[in-house]
């Protein structure tokens, strides 16, 4: 598959199915005619880099496809934030994301025995966070297409090769986008669980330490989303990424240490009418769960310390 084929494939991803073949055939003819003209002028075949320059001059596939669907809508806020080529995909992803939010809230409410009175407000917060995240991702993709018309290889799973120094480290955009979505889901779950003081499963309830640290958890997750958004927009800011990771590892370590200092992470609310035997059995289960939490937190400390050292090394290497 040639560079031109991959470019056309990328444009085709955003074209209306009905007109796709027709538009791509015409575009293909135009690109090849232009290349042939340039070859005739130079008296030799074009190099890869010269071919890439021609494609770069055409613009990012998203922008090219957008010109063929001016009536497909878009998201505007003063200026265009999401163009017509991306808008229909954005609406579809938003719809799926809303269904996921609804399903997650239903599962959480049933599994954690959360009071049904707060379902609507929890769902609204969840929907808001997820919609804002999805919107942010699409706005960043649109902006990237406008600012970097040469970087479209990721659309077809190929590396961008135009104006790219091969050895330059970059943070994967796909990884950053996935991180944003995962963190948004965690944020919504954390908010949902920790905003309900009697959240728990059966007779087991979360200990007060979780609720005391709830603001810190929410801040850490929000900061993680901001960092991932920055990574998505600027994958070349590897030093910033490493620096922020160090900050996160330190924050995680502080939170884990605070959790460890509590000593108890799950408490027992004995059901009314439980016999002494039943209460003793439940107390044993709670003690075991707390032991698992203790070892789990210790392992988390070790992992965080290891990652901290790795990130400090990486930061120092990138600073040289």
């Amino acid at each position, binding site marked *: 598959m040639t560079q031109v084929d991959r470019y056309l494939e990328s444009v085709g991803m955003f074209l209306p199915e009905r*007109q796709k073949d027709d538009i791509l055939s*015409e575009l293909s003819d135009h690109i090849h005619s232009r290349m042939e003209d340039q070859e005739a002028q130079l008296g030799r075949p074009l190099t890869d880099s010269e071919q890439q320059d021609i494609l770069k001059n055409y613009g990012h596939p998203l*922008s*090219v496809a957008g*010109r063929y669907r*001016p009536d497909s809508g878009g998201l505007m806020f003063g200026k265009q934030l999401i163009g017509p080529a991306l808008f229909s995909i954005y609406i579809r992803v938003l719809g799926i994301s809303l269904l996921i939010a609804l399903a997650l809230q239903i599962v959480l409410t049933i599994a954690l025995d959360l009071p049904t009175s707060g379902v609507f407000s929890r769902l609204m917060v969840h929907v808001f966070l997820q919609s804002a995240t999805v919107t942010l991702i699409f706005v960043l993709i649109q902006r990237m297409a406008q600012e970097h018309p040469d970087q479209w290889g990721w659309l077809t799973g190929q590396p961008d090769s135009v104006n790219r120094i091969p050895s330059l480290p970059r943070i994967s955009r796909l990884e950053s986008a996935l991180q944003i979505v995962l963190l948004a889901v965690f944020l919504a779950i954390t908010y949902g669980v920790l905003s309900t003081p009697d959240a728990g499963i059966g007779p087991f309830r979360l200990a007060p330490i979780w609720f005391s640290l709830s603001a810190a958890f929410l801040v850490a997750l929000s900061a993680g989303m901001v960092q991932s958004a920055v990574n998505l927009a600027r994958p070349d800011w590897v030093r910033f990424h490493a620096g922020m990771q160090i900050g996160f590892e330190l924050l995680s370590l502080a939170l884990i240490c605070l959790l460890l200092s509590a000593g108890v992470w799950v408490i027992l609310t004995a059901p009314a009418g439980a016999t002494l035997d039943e209460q003793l059995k439940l107390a044993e289960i709670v003690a075991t769960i707390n032991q698992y939490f203790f070892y789990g937190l210790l392992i988390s400390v070790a992992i965080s310390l290891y990652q901290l050292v790795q990130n400090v090394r990486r930061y120092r290497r990138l600073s040289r």
Partner: protein
Amino acid sequence: MSDELLENLRLELRRGYLVLAVLTQLRTEHYGYALRKALAERGLEIDENTLYPLLRRLESQGLLDSEWREEDKRNKRFYRVSAAGQTIRAQLLDEWEGINASLRVITQGGPEADLHLTGVK
């Protein structure tokens, strides 16, 4: 800011006469790339990302006819102005000449033109 404003106004101004230029140039049959070159040779540069969507729009409005044909071992889409396009083109040309004449009076006449237009001697 003023550069951006100028660019926006320039694009707005161009939008109208590009249609006229394309309809006029397509009195003779052209495929997209050849049309772009022909317009550029006559001093009217047009971006391919503007030209092709414009050709499709004019065709969907019935002002152009098109046909896929093989030339130089490649399939090319040839465009030509339709009968309806010819009528519209003639009307647009009249309109353009009228606007041009008015603009000449406005931009070159100065205060005397104003007096002339209001009938003051």
